[in-house]
């Protein structure tokens, strides 16, 4: 996909990803319809028929992403009435709290949102996303809205035990996030750390308890910085920012565990041992197909995605398969500071030219990008391994686990790279070719 999404979508993801909250899109239904399709894909589970979609016209007959459905009349004569009515209607139908998110088109009206919320009679159950959310990057929109949600829920310091953490910067934007949550919980659990709340991928009740955490651990720092600062400032909860980005790939997982261990003073040996064991197992398989793995050596790789996913993946692929970054496109953030680690690494390996470079027509053996782009790249050259590492997840129901964190992510990536190569390396069935 040529362009990147913006903070509007980040805000919607923050609100819809938090149980007990709804993103009420203030704008034309066209903006909502595709957002709702995306939401349908990234929140793949549905418990059963929910009547709320029929009880409010603002739900548009579906259960996610309600909307004010502005039309030409509303754009000309004002939308305050629909905002008030929409808040009241959705709050009554769902019982949830509302995050009002303006589309850029609707924001041109500069409706008095505070007054409209007040007029709804549900002012205490509504919070406003930034008026300027469409000017933000996706990660800023997510983080800014998440901070507002946390502020609104207003967690208080609780009983901590030195081993309780919140996970920040993890949400439905992450591939197969439901599995990812379990992986992160397992990873930290292996070193005795308990996760209180996944702030951004949990419900409001767990956010209310999040004040009892001893630390906040960021998975995608670009999506969590202001939220982490809020916790630090208001509840005195310090945060851990992983230096290598998200725990994607063995090296980054080890580093991640070490950094959590440093701040919590908890031993990470057992968790690292589990990781080492899995790495050894995977390597045994890779060695059995060493011609495939070896064939990647010195070829180029392309990476598109969030910096905190790209950095660990890029470093890992460089060390594991000797794949050299030749095209790196940083998405979901506009803050150059977030990509500093990537720049540093590219400088270290003398590949600075890869940043923002187009994918060369030949010589690139692996592409890591969102599922749509990965599929497109595969269509352009079937000999490349093209690995989906983020949303949108075209046509994927989220039944199998392809989440990136921890060991599942390692298996998924290695499997996708080796099995995605369009090549045949059997040769004659001699002992020399088979282990």
């Amino acid at each position, binding site marked *: 996909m040529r362009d990147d999404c913006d903070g509007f979508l980040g805000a919607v993801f923050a609100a819809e990803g938090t149980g007990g909250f709804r993103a009420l899109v203030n704008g034309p239904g066209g903006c909502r319809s595709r957002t709702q399709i995306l939401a349908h894909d990234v929140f793949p589970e549905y418990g059963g028929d929910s009547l709320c979609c029929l009880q409010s*016209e603002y739900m548009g007959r579906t259960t996610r992403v309600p909307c004010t459905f502005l039309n030409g009349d509303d754009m000309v004569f004002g939308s305050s009435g629909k905002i008030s009515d929409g808040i009241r209607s959705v709050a009554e139908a769902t019982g949830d709290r509302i995050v009002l998110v303006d589309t850029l088109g609707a924001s041109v009206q500069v409706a*008095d949102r505070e007054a409209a919320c007040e007029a709804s009679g549900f002012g205490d159950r509504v919070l406003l996303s930034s008026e300027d959310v469409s000017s933000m990057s996706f990660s800023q929109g997510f983080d800014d809205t998440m901070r507002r949600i946390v502020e609104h829920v207003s967690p208080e310091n609780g009983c901590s035990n030195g081993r309780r953490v919140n996970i920040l910067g993890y949400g439905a934007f992450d591939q197969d996030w439901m599995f990812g949550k379990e992986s992160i919980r397992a990873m930290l659990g292996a070193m005795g750390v308990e996760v209180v709340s996944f702030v951004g991928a949990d419900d409001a009740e767990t956010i209310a308890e999040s004040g009892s955490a001893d630390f906040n651990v960021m998975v995608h720092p670009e999506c969590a910085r202001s939220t982490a600062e809020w916790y630090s400032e208001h509840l005195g909860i310090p945060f851990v920012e992983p230096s290598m980005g998200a725990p994607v790939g063995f090296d980054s997982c080890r580093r991640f565990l070490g950094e959590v261990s440093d701040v919590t003073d908890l031993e990470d040996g057992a968790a690292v041992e589990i990781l080492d064991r899995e790495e050894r197992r995977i390597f045994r398989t890779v060695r059995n197909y060493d011609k495939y793995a070896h064939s990647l050596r010195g070829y180029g790789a392309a990476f598109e995605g969030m910096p905190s996913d790209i950095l660990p993946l890029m470093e890992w692929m460089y060390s594991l398969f000797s794949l050299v970054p030749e095209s790196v496109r940083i998405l979901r953030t506009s803050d150059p500071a977030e990509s500093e680690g990537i720049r540093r690494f590219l400088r270290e390996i003398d590949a600075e030219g890869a940043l923002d470079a187009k994918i060369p027509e030949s010589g690139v053996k692996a592409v890591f990008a969102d599922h749509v782009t990965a599929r*497109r790249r595969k269509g352009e050259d079937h000999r490349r391994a093209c690995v989906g590492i983020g949303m949108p997840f075209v046509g994927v129901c989220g039944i199998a686990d392809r989440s990136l964190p921890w060991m599942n992510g390692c298996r998924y990536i290695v499997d996708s790279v080796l099995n995605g190569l369009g090549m045949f390396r059997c040769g004659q069935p001699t002992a020399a070719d088979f282990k």
Partner: protein
Amino acid sequence: MDDMNAPYTVDRGQERNSLPSQSYLDIYTNQDTGLMFKVSVYGKGGVGKSTVSANLSYLLSLRGYRVLHIGCDPKHDSTRLLTDGKPQKTFLDCMADKDGDPMVSGSAGVMCIECGGAEPGIGCAGKGMSAMFAYLETNTPDDIDMTVCDVLGDVVCGGFGVPMRRSNTDAVILVVSEDFMSLYATNNILKGVRNLNGTECVLGMVVNSRSPEHFGRVEAFSEATGVPVIAVLPRDPRFSDAEGIGKTLCELYPDSGPASELGRIADAVVAAAEGRARPVPAAPLDDESMTDIAAMRRTVPRPAPTGRKVRGFDTFDASRGIVYRRKQAMPACTSHGAVNFLQEIGDAAVVVHGPRNCAWLMSFARDREAAMSRPGVSPMRPDNIYSTGLDSGAVFAGGRTELEETLRKVRGDGFGTAFVVMTCTAEAIGVDLTRECSDIAVPGLTIIPVAPDRRFLSSRFGGREGAMDAASRFAVPVSEPEKDTVCLLGIGGRPEDDPISSRFLEDLLGAFGLRISARLPDETAIGAFRAMASSEFVIVPSRGYYAEMLAGHLAAGRKVFGAEPLRGIRGVEDWCGLLRAMTGRDGGGFLERCRKEYGEGLSEAGRGLRGKKVLMYSGDSIMPPDVVDTCIDLGMEVVAIAVWPPAVYNTVRRPNPHAGIRVIEDVSLCGLKDVAREVGADLVVTNHLRAGKTGLPNISFMTDHLAHIGSVVWARRASNAMRIKPEPAWRVRHEG
């Protein structure tokens, strides 16, 4: 004034409120209380708001208040009397340049900020105003006690209403003259204050006198609205002198009569700030009362009607001629239809002039459809959708720079043609797309603006008509069409998506000596429009509104043949008849072969169906004719058509074309079981997902392929439906 709650009224003949003998500054300073008193000065354009507000800021500063003067007029001339006549860099310029401090210190230490605006007639100044107030929320110096906001006369949109919101204004001062139009504009401002603020915040009127003989008009207005006159400024050349050298009159002539009168405004503000005077609520008058005011008559105050707060959901879809009913709001979009149509033209770029999300989500929807239609098959659809990436900054600047940059990028990526489609954001800020596209020159790139819909945001497939028009420029009819070629308009689906149907279509046409020159608007290229124009025949399968629209736009000058949908064996018969009439050829036994295949297919696939009774359940009384035909040809009996309750659109009920089949209207899902029992149905045919609740065998209308091939597959599924459980396990087990 003893009574703190008494309205603040200063009549010309009365003793004015005096400053308190003891300064309240020490109890009112921002540092101590965290409070800030906010004054907004409104009035008709040219009435003297900037002069009054600059003098007011200056005087308040002299009285010890720390004042922030906020110029809200896009022509940014409010602060010049406080900055020695030198225009300061505006907030929007600072924002656009990402450089400079928008706040400067002026005369008597007044802090000054000017909002500024885009070029006249371009962009959205209201959005800029909103951005400045957002900036001020976090960047107003801590020690500011008072803000004086000089606002554009007309509250033309929500953006210009921002300063009068409750959170931004404690007191509104209205600058008027004795002219009726000035008072008429002021009455409108009062409407805005009532709508947007709703508190007692109108401090009073300042009369900038132009025709003292008509002062009675002001008095009548004041009496009717309850807004007191707090100062009357005479015509005085010293105002002009001061403006000439960029100073306030109060600074240049502090002891003059006008300065003294301006002092009364400052008195009033201080009294209100200190709680010694209470402003009045906005009570605008209706037109009849204003007619009295125009005639300088006292009037019985009749309040202006309040605006309608909630507008309806029943929305007319102008492009499809249907009304969306309540509970199903129309997902209106200005660009979806245009992008949907144009994205199929693989060698042209589609530039979506709007925020990044619009293009991103449209690309996503397109690629999702492609991936789900053809999983594992490559390549995907054309990667040709671009965004101009409008954001708040671009919105108030008009977005021209972003459009130009994007078009250059399009050319850089190798495209020679770019269609530019407006989103609702671009439309809302009044982008003149035709002019911009003709002004922007990118060598090697043909830039084609897509005309927006005639009615703004009145279609879920907005812009489609404009897109067809834009594409039709490539379909110029030729004098000598290419013999035996056929262009198919609106057959739908891409050949790759259903190769079986595509092959059949080619065989069918081939049997009559024809070949397909183009399929529009399926995945295509600009060349296909030219091919269409040179085709001997154009066939439009009657697929409704869009196919007809497409024919109207693209097939100008060509002879167009309408055809029935190529569904079932009757569809094949219809098409063969049409092709025979078009070409004069007999098709070489093609139809007979199809009939034979159909008969054999049904007898093999439709085991166990003969004699069964079928109930069809749908949102319309008109069933897919091929499915009805197949049922009959299988020896089944279609006993009734049950129609859903009208819920979504006001679809016009058409006459029942299925002679002899009973139609039962308004059947809910809950009532379907009873209806099925009543008619003795063995099988329910419906697209309703929960039809299994009837406990009866059920199957959808869906046929996978064109012609009789689809019918045979459907017959096999219907036969299977008689054996499988009405509801699958995933539906009923662990539900909820």
